[in-house]
């Protein structure tokens, strides 16, 4: 109760509450471990000649230790202007040691991963919330609330394995800053988990000039896998001519294909030309709510948001690449390149893209898009029927309500469920609901 301290005495006309809070905590955790998991288990296999068999299912790990979490938190709670404005601001720093995680083992061990203690991770951030009573009198009540949180995860330490940053997993890309091939992704000391990498679509080959100018061999497209052209890699006409290659051994880029960004400027598009696309974990999360009351009538609205993360809806990619052929495309097909629609956003819509040029079928910024969203989560209108009307019916109270839930998002149109992160598959959206209700008290 700092506002009662002497040195804050002169502030009482605006500072009505000030409380400082600090904490340190340490706890252990064995989250998510199954009942018999650490002992290893023999489970049944399918039948063979009608007899059930057994195999070693779970691998025992008798050396597993507790996961230990140290958390330091500090917060201020405050009230201003006779508590018309109240809220809190807090920061936290959580360090998890001996983090229990599934770690990949060499493929030849026959065990893909094992749950073990895998280094330390830092999880730090800040959280704030505030409620403002804008108006509060006999007939009116207007309250605004908001909260916001910022979070960042960092890997501090991983078990030594001889790799740079003791990296586990990961993939290689070209680093323009150093001119070298570097390892990114996976888990690395000093980096955040959940980083995604992909190719960059610079634009489309929209006209004859674009086509004549494009000079790339596209090894990332692999080889064409259909009929006559089967086995041929993809190259632009310009480069084919320039290098004097045999046109019967290559498949050429055409109008409506993607122009990929050549990060290492070697005229070859391959795994090196991927760049950081974003994280799977939101940096900012928060929400707003508004409540507005006038006599017995009340309106309540709630929104939430998350910022700073990406998502890819694989099903969108699959549909745009017409990967099965017998299914209809999505609406974005109308925005794909045709001679009549040269300014389209997407490349040519073509059956079996995954067997051809992979315009669609690769991790790229075409589908790995920002998942930032603002969701209109709830809107409620309620009316408390006045007592005077109720008395005759011997009813104590009656409140009528109508609530709308999940009313919509402001977010990227390619994502149906922006709350999800990372690589996802198509899903049903959360249903929008309209609920009518009455609350009766006798």
């Amino acid at each position: 109760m700092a506002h009662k301290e002497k040195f804050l005495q002169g502030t009482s006309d605006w500072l009505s509450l000030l409380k400082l809070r600090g904490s340190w905590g340490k706890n252990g955790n064995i989250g998510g471990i199954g009942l018999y998991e650490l002992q290893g288990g023999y489970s049944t296999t399918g039948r063979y000649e009608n007899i059930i068999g057994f195999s070693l299912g779970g691998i025992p790990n008798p050396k597993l230790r507790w996961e230990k979490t140290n958390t330091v938190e500090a917060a201020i709670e405050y009230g201003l202007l006779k508590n018309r404005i109240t809220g809190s601001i807090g920061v936290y720093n959580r360090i998890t040691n001996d983090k229990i995680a599934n770690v990949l083992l060499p493929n030849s061990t026959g065990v893909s991963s094992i749950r073990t203690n895998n280094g330390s991770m830092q999880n730090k951030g800040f959280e704030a919330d505030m409620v403002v009573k804008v108006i509060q009198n006999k007939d009116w009540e207007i309250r605004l609330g908001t909260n916001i949180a910022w979070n960042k995860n960092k890997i501090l330490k991983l078990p030594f394995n001889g790799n740079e940053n003791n990296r586990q997993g990961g993939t290689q890309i070209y680093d323009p800053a150093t001119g070298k091939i570097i390892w990114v992704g996976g888990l690395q000391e000093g980096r955040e988990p959940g980083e995604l990498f992909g190719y960059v679509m610079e634009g489309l080959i929209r006209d004859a000039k674009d086509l004549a100018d494009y000079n790339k061999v596209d090894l990332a497209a692999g080889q064409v896998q259909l009929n006559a052209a089967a086995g041929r890699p993809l190259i632009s006409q310009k480069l084919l001519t320039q290098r004097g290659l045999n046109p019967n051994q290559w498949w050429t880029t055409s109008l409506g294909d993607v122009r990929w960004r050549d990060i290492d400027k070697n005229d070859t598009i391959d795994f090196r030309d991927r760049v950081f696309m974003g994280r799977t974990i939101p940096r900012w999360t928060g929400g707003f709510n508004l409540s507005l009351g006038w006599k017995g009538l009340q309106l309540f609205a709630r929104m939430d948001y998350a910022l700073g993360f990406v998502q890819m809806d694989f099903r969108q990619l699959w549909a745009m690449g017409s990967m099965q052929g017998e299914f209809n495309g999505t609406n974005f097909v109308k925005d794909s390149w045709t001679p009549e629609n040269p300014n389209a956003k997407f490349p040519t819509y073509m059956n079996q893209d995954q067997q051809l040029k992979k315009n669609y079928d690769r991790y790229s910024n075409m589908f790995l898009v920002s998942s930032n969203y603002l969701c209109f989560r709830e809107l409620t209108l309620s009316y408390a029927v006045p007592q005077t009307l109720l008395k005759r019916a011997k009813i104590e109270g009656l409140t009528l309500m109508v609530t709308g839930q999940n009313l919509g998002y402001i977010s990227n149109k390619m994502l149906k469920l922006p709350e999800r992160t990372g690589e996802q598959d198509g899903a049903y959206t959360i249903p929008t609901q309209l609920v009518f209700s009455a609350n009766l008290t006798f």
Partner: protein
Amino acid sequence: MTKNTFQVVLFFAMLTIGMTSCKKTLELTPQDSFGSGNFWKNEAQISGFMQGMHTQFRGNMFQFLRLGEMRGGGFTTAEIFPVSLNEVPLILQNLEENSSGVGNWGGFYGAILQLNLFIQETEASKILTQAKKSYFLGQAYAMRAYYYFHLLRTYGGVPLRLEPEVPNGITDPVALRKARATEAEVLAAVKSDADKAVASFGAAATANKAQWNPMAALMLKGEIYLWSAKVYNTTADLATAKAALNAVTGFTLRPNFADVFSYANKKNSEIIFALSYSFAEAEMPSVSTFTYDLPGLAGGFYADSLASGAFISTNPDPLNIGQTNAQQIIQRYRYSFELFKSYDNADRRKLATFYDFYKVTKTGAPPYKVLARNTVLRKFLGTIDQNKRYFSDDWPIYREAERLLMLAEIVNAEGGDPTVYIKQIRDRAFGGAANDKVPFVNRTKDANELFIFAERSKEFVFEGKRWYDARRMKFGTDPLAFISPSHPYGVLNKATHAYRLLWPIEPAIWTNDPLVNQTPGYVTSKPK
């Protein structure tokens, strides 16, 4: 209960808790499930584990087929139906680090781990009679040899793991790294396991032809030593192979080829070891994807290239496999028409193996123009139960026909006359020597080799042999897998793509284990 007694009970209860709660690690064994502490305690568990390993073995059937046959030149990648075909890069030999055909070492190390554990526990077990223990170990060593033999033929050198490290408590990913052994070391391990299997079985009689058994172990030993003799030029191994195959006795060719695979005729006299399927239990994976696309077949195909009859009806469809509640039939894999054409019309294997049909422009005077020739698999179509198709034929790992053809190959390699073996195969295929208009005649070693290869290609469709055959069998000193003016079977250019005899591994393997290098010859992005 009086207050006093209650206090006494409480006191003892607390004392008990106090005394038991001091253990550092949890060492209880669960009562209601099999943990590592209470398994391997009785014969039922050990035989149950062997059963489980066979379930898993059967689960790898399509991988065995893929590794053994798909690159063998018998497949085509040209579509007839508006349905794309699967695994095109692999069938076209277009294998690279980022298009590795199969991943994760074929998925075999999971099974090898189970085998390593089984061998360790069973070798140490004191609860089995000697006879049972030997039989179980014979099965396990044979199965492990079989998996590693696939790995050897696919990758050459692979990490050689003969102990269950992870279940034994080694869980550090760094300590578990293992480089690829040399091809010679893997071969030695495969031979050693096969020898141990044969020795362990001893004179035991086969208990069940749907599991690894003494005769199957001898077949495997013969096949391994034949491979060693021809691929690595260890000529002395020919004799070992021959002795092993000659020790396989008691099997006869079925008079009618189609009967070998028929559902009603499982475990017949020709079968040495076959994976068991049944309509009530499991269907053979992917057979249905070697058939036809029903919508594609409707309207427009004739049963012969002269278009002599009406269009093929699709209700019922010609092979009676298109029941709506059965596995979806489609053509995702297609054997080449050349393979179908290579059979003599009198060869009964032709129509027991394939069903052929044609798209014809029926205008003008015959012969009409043939637009498309298609063949689909008729072998291994399984059975009908309650009006529903089940692709549940057994899948032979070894059968008498292969024993005879391996012996033919050995005798030919020794410079002898293989006629006696080949004639049995031909006579059965043609339903009697009288129908065989171009019987085998002993000629040069190379000519005989090509004849045996062609015979095996016709005999073992969908049995996972042809790619391995093309690698093992030779014209001169080169494997048939190399393109050559002397025969039509080559698929790889020796000068530019000889390295593709072995398969590449995908980057995830060397990312997880930096000690593992890419297969020699393949371009890799692995840092030095």
